[in-house]
């Protein structure tokens, strides 16, 4: 496809797929290309025609909610910044941080935006920084996203060269310095106060709230932390207006959403769709349905730290309210799909191992609770569990729940565990009654294959050895 045809096609979707219409994972648009495709119009409008308060009002009116998992209204988050409550405080230092520490297992939506259209995020960060009167912004990127890091740094350099960053941006009085910070791999850095500690060079344990970062965040100054996808909506909301944003979605949660599916589906991927597409549509129309000949056992609707949903929930719209009413959370909007030939206990064990490893260790319920759950689940999965173990797991779910921990990591671990024990109760009990994993018979077949594959590997090793010589 020529670049003209690509651009033409892309622009035809600018009003329906604002976030992704310019995504090009092979070769993202440089600054000139992005401007030609309609980029930086939103930022120009903000800097030249609107006061910070007016930008805030547009974003508040659009009803944009945070896309990082919690779904908190963005306008409300910003409005707590002192500079927006009292104009005399605009000169005081404050910071914008873009949370690009995408480490929630089963979540990969932000990577598309970071790698595929880096200038969109920079434009968004200019708008957000201007609104909260921040003159310094940090883009906090997870350490493993090397491609994104290279592309973002190039885009930042281009933005400086073309006066989209630095002093007197595009002739305005506004100044912004934007820095890319790459992390070194730790899940908890995605929690906003832990992220702030990480940026300060401290051990990245979450902070107690209050004070909230909007009042006292990075280096003790007012700080707003927003997710990549949340911010990426801003250029489009400013360009097309808040009413357009609300009209994108058929229900009360406005805008589009980066939905994804992975696990045991035919066609895993990311799709930008109107907020509120049903799980069934996402699973069957976009992700191609279940892989091979497996049937749906259950799914996590928005990353590893959300509750399981099952067959009966398939017609639930994927928006914050509806998924909440179904007993789970929209989270990051990425389905993790489990088929009926895979052991749900093994799946939950994998999830809890992750949370136990990534617990920062600050508070006892999380530090001790998550490995304890792993120990019990391991026992059950190996067929050595007892009915008392199930009662113990229930107790632990209670000990690690909201209000008893320092941050949301342990409650996030409880969500898939507790819901699995509800929906897959029979599976847990069968492990205990039968003294083995009931899914083992199919595992045995796999193990036979593994012996074969191990043989092939050994042959490969000896061949490699010969070549080396």
């Amino acid at each position, binding site marked *: 496809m020529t670049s003209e045809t690509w651009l033409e096609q892309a622009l035809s979707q600018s009003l329906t797929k604002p976030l992704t219409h310019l995504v090009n994972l092979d070769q993202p648009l440089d600054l000139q290309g992005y401007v030609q495709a309609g980029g930086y119009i939103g930022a120009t409008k903000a800097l030249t025609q609107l006061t910070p308060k007016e930008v805030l009002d547009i974003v508040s009116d659009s009803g944009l909610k945070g896309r990082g998992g919690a779904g908190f209204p963005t306008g409300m988050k910003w409005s707590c910044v002192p500079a927006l409550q009292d104009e005399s405080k605009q000169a005081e230092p404050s910071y914008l941080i873009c949370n690009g520490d995408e480490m929630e297992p089963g979540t990969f939506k932000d990577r598309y935006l970071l790698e595929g259209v880096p200038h969109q995020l920079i434009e968004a960060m200019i708008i957000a920084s201007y609104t909260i009167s921040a003159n310094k912004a940090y883009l906090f990127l997870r*350490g493993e996203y090397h491609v994104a890091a290279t592309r973002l740094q190039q885009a930042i350099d281009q933005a400086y060269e073309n006066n989209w960053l630095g002093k007197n941006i595009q002739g305005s009085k506004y100044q912004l310095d934007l820095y890319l910070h790459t992390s070194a791999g730790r899940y908890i850095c995605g929690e906003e106060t832990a992220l702030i500690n990480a940026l300060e060079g401290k051990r990245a344990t979450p902070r107690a709230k209050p004070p909230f970062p909007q009042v006292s965040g990075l280096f003790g100054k007012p700080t707003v932390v927003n997710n990549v996808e949340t911010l990426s909506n801003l250029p489009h909301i400013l360009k097309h207006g808040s009413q357009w944003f609300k009209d994108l979605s058929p229900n009360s949660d406005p805008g589009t959403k980066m939905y994804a599916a992975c696990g045991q589906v035919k066609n895993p991927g990311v799709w930008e769709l109107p907020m509120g597409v049903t799980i069934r549509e996402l699973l069957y129309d976009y992700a191609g349905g279940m892989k091979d000949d497996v049937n749906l056992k259950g799914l996590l609707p928005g990353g590893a730290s959300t509750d399981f949903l099952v067959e009966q929930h398939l017609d639930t719209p994927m928006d914050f309210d509806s998924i909440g009413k179904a007993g789970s959370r929209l989270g990051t909007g990425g389905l993790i799909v489990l088929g009926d030939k895979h052991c749900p206990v093994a799946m939950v064990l994998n999830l809890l191992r992750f949370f136990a490893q990534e617990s920062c260790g600050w508070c006892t319920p999380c530090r001790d609770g998550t490995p304890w759950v792993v120990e019990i689940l391991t026992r059950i999965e190996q067929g050595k569990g007892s009915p008392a173990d199930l009662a113990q797991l229930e107790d632990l779910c209670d000990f690690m729940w909201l209000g008893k921990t320092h941050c949301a990591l342990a409650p996030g671990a409880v969500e898939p565990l507790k819901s699995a024990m509800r929906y897959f109760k029979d599976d847990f009990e069968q492990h205990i009654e039968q003294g083995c994993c009931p899914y083992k018979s199919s595992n045995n077949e796999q193990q036979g294959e593994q012996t074969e594959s191990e043989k092939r590997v050994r042959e490969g090793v000896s061949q490699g050895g010969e070549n080396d010589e």
Partner: protein
Amino acid sequence: MSNNNSDFSVHPRIPSIMVTDEEIDFRQYLSSAELSVIEHEVSIMETREAAGIEALKIVQKHRGWISDDSLIAIAQCLQISSAQLEGVATFYNLIYRQKVGHYVIHLCDSISCHLTGYDEILKVIQTYLGIGYGQTTPDGEFTLLSNVCLGSCDKSPAMMINGQHYHSLTNESVVSILNGLSQSAGGSV
């Protein structure tokens, strides 16, 4: 298998000679390239300690890992205690506080890879290299580590070797990748 690798990872790291902070002068220890990156990072943050992660990463990039001496030198440079910097260094999965091989394999073991056959890929790698998690091959070429979700769930199973990502792994593709790296490693010696 463990005999080859009993030096580290199996046992906790205990320095044989205790080095005190005073015995290292960071100005002599750190290279000018390392110092300039660290000072640049300091210049864009409000405090010297905020450059900690970047400093650890740049020294690791030059030297492969963070030794006790490196840790002490960086801490001096940033005017913080080495104990404080150790708390930061050990917090992150991608900072190596033990010597690692020329190639560091980070195999994703999170949920999507778990659901799409990560177990088998792990066995293939372990059989090929003759090492387990946390170990390094006797020739010092490969270290095997697990990694939390690499964000490649649409192309799982996935792994990362020296910053390069590999997707949609099969038993065959993993062997072919490792063969390729083994040969280039052999050639460079």
